[in-house]
């Protein structure tokens, strides 16, 4: 990836230095007290000044759900749209206005259930969008039904005997949908969250950021194992491009490739196997290893959950190609001449 994202250069820069306050709207934030969404909002508002873009050229578009109230709280342009459709609306905006930085805020229900089709197609097209997927593994706004990321057997209001649905792994799904940038982070880790947002903003094309987010009302503690200091050391694998994939107390554990299956597995790091520890390559052209990493976590305990940028590769961006086709058409046929178009090649004149 180049140092500076050329597409980001198309978005006008802020004239004056910005602060977090500049990105707070005058609207009262109305999430439940203790909701993880507050932390994400603060992180985004805090990171925007670093990006340094003119705030009138930033647009947040959301669907429906708790997280989708997000745009109301950002002092940028914004649209709170309808359930699941934010990626398609954002696609129309981003492909017609390359001078805008377009962000989609969505949740696990919005993005993966009702809007699943739009999500995968946005990813495969590689439209220049940044998608923040707040995953709390529950339906919050409708008060506590299971979501497409809820664990099998989950007891909720709509599944009193346990959910029968196998969950999606959003990162695996995104990689499978040809995503060029996929990352995962956690609401409570402001520093990590910010670093991932920064990387997403820099990425030319669609960036999907899964944010594990706590719903303290309907699914409290869903990611506790990743947040609790004692447990997190064993549970969380922090990925950094170019670094060996190790975790645990003093890097005592690491990820190696199983020579028989090609799959990845966690091992205790020893002098003998140290050289076999996988070095994370987010820019690997093949998605195979990123996909294997996305499957590393234990679905029940969330142990061995990788966070960070799993995949970040450059490939043609839809909006750029669309703009190039328009330019090429003018080059080939000249700027559109309406009179000539209407006249066509086969006309006749009636004289009075």
């Amino acid at each position, binding site marked *: 990836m180049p140092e500076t994202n050329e597409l980001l250069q198309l978005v006008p820069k802020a004239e004056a230095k910005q602060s977090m306050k500049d990105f707070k709207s005058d609207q009262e934030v109305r999430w439940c007290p203790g909701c993880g969404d507050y932390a994400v909002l603060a992180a985004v508002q805090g990171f925007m000044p670093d990006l340094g873009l003119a705030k009138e050229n930033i647009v947040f578009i959301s669907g429906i759900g708790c997280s989708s109230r997000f745009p109301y709280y950002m002092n940028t342009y914004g649209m709170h749209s309808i359930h699941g459709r934010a990626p398609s609306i954002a696609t129309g905006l981003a492909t*017609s206005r390359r001078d805008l930085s377009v962000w989609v805020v969505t949740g696990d229900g919005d993005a993966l259930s009702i809007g699943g089709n739009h999500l995968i197609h946005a990813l495969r097209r590689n439209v220049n969008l940044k998608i923040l997927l707040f995953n709390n593994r529950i339906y919050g706004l409708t008060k506590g039904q299971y979501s497409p990321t809820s664990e099998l057997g989950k007891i909720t209001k709509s599944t009193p005997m346990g959910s029968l649905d196998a969950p999606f792994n959003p990162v695996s799904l995104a990689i499978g949908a040809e995503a060029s940038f996929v990352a995962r982070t956690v609401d409570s880790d402001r520093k990590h969250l910010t670093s991932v947002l920064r990387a997403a903003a820099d990425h030319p094309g669609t960036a999907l950021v899964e944010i594990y987010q706590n719903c303290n009302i309907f699914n409290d503690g869903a990611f506790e194992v990743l947040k609790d200091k004692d447990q997190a050391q064993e549970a969380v694998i922090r990925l950094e491009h170019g670094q060996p994939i190790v975790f645990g107390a003093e890097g005592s554990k690491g990820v190696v490739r199983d020579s028989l299956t090609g799959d990845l597995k966690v091992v205790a790091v020893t002098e003998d196997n140290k050289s076999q520890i996988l070095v994370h390559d987010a820019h690997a052209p093949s998605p195979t290893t990123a996909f294997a990493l996305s499957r590393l976590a234990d679905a029940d305990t969330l142990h061995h959950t990788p966070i960070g940028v799993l995949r970040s590769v450059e490939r043609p961006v839809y909006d750029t190609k669309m703009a190039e*086709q328009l330019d090429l058409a003018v080059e080939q046929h000249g700027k559109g001449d309406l009179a000539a178009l209407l006249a066509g090649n086969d006309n006749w004149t009636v004289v009075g």
Partner: protein
Amino acid sequence: MTSQVSSPAEQADEAGEALVGGQRAPESAGTGGKEIRRLDRVIIRFAGDSGDGMQLTGDRFTSETASFGNDLSTLPNFPAEIRAPAGTLPGVSSFQLHFADHDILTPGDAPNVLVAMNPAALRANIADVPRGAEIIVNTDEFTKRPMAKVGYETSPLEDGSLEAYNLHPVPLTTLTIEALKDFGLSRKEAERSKNMFALGLLSWMYHRPTEGTEAFLRAKFAKKPQIAEANVAAFRAGWNFGETTEDFAVSYEVAPASQAFPTGTYRNISGNLALSYGLIAAGRQADLPVYLGSYPITPASDILHELSKHKNFGVRTFQAEDEIAGIGAALGAAFGGALAVTTTSGPGVALKSETIGLAVSLELPLLIIDIQRGGPSTGLPTKTEQADLLQAMYGRNGEAPVPIVAPRTPADCFDAALDAARIALTYRTPVFLLSDGYLANGSEPWRIPELDRLPDLRVQFAGGPNHELADGTEVFWPYKRDPQTLARPWAVPGTPGLEHRIGGIEKQDGTGNISYDPANHDFMVRTRQAKVDGIEVPDVEVDDPAEARTLVLGWGSTYGPITAAVRRLRASGRSIAQAHLRHINPFPRNLGEVLKRYDKVVVPEMNLGQLATLIRAKYLVDAHSYNQVNGMPFKAEQLAAALEEAIDA
């Protein structure tokens, strides 16, 4: 030409006797060789298998006829299947063309000439052909199996069942293969040109110019010159066959319709093409980039195809993953300041309805083009119908009024697109444009407009604060309305200081912030309705030369057949008034007064009475419906009979 309701020609046109098969011949003129008869109009139907190239044949004959200067109207009719089993009734594809030396309105009720490329084509179309008409059949296909396939136990060419017609048995396949024997083509390849042979024959019969077709074939097959020349040879062989064979003793002339056309430059145009050009023109007139978000669906896909060719006009076309994403992308582009369009048909409208509701709430300009087809569900994808009117009017949750514009003829789709854009841009609202399969694929001559006569559609984006708070602070209120139009400001991202958030949740009047206040909701619902009710639309014009007591009221593509039926009635001494709606929401201001002027109001529709329902509800008028939902446009003769019955009832 169908634009002049009260031209002198209307007295003569289609007013005539119930059509009989024989072609009306005002005068005959012999020439040195074969006899040439002059006709004032002809209806030809080409019919064959889906693979026989009948649509292409019809298109070419239409082009020849248009460039010759006749007035014309066409009716392509084809199956939804790409290739139904060969030689079967469901596989029959046809193209009907009506051309005349005067102003005409419809593709005609019944053909004077049927070209049947196989037994299925004969069987599927013979019921429409009046006795005395000419039938040209490809005898090569009338063998035992193809005939048995469509239920002919004996050959209709020999069993006397076609005695009442003027039958021309022509071995089209054999003659084509013979004509192409020096081209080194396989039998199968050579056979494919038989439609061009038939076209050549018909072109001779009706004195059509041929240069256009030859140039077309050479351009179409530019990369395969051998095939191009083979087709040209087949075309010429067909022409020469007509000239030399004794079976065709007479050829016909239909003089150019010079009287019917006001001065100007003309071309032939189909509804979908006119609509596409209308959208491009609207973008130019509004000085906004056109953005089409669409998903392929019959019979609307042609517009996606056409607009995709014109990227040098700055037109962006986005083929989305589904109907919902198509309109979603369009709405996103509208937020960004584009002239946004989505194109679809009835089933797609059903999928888009939630987003249309959002557009109503966001109050952004958006064109929703519905090329109606037979429904419900998948229905009849390639046939025409007007049964989406109530879906367009009411098919959303909540009170979600959307203006509706309906073109009346293929060429009128151009003006309707500009008008729909005017309403969308002026009032910041989604607008429905209801075309249909008949308009979409049918064609007619179109007087090409001068660009300086197109409407000015330029809009002013919001540029700064529009409201002063009590403390004197200047702020931007996204829902502060223009007092005249009730439109809200269009503040596009990238405008400093106007950052604002909009959404589908009810908004507070003025600020646009979320509001659950009951009184505010009541106010906003009424205001959105008042905005649509207040849209400026021209008064409906009534054509009533003889103070009739009965009014026939139509909308959309029934204009041609209704006007033709009205001409017939008037020619037979009956008086009837006619009005036709372009705007269905809101209705023209004078419509209530117009309706009350008449003892009887008859509303012919290709549905079960949807406009009639709206008229009855709004104006308490006892409107009578005359309905047809068979996938085809009304026939003027039947409609005239129905209207006469209504007058006498």
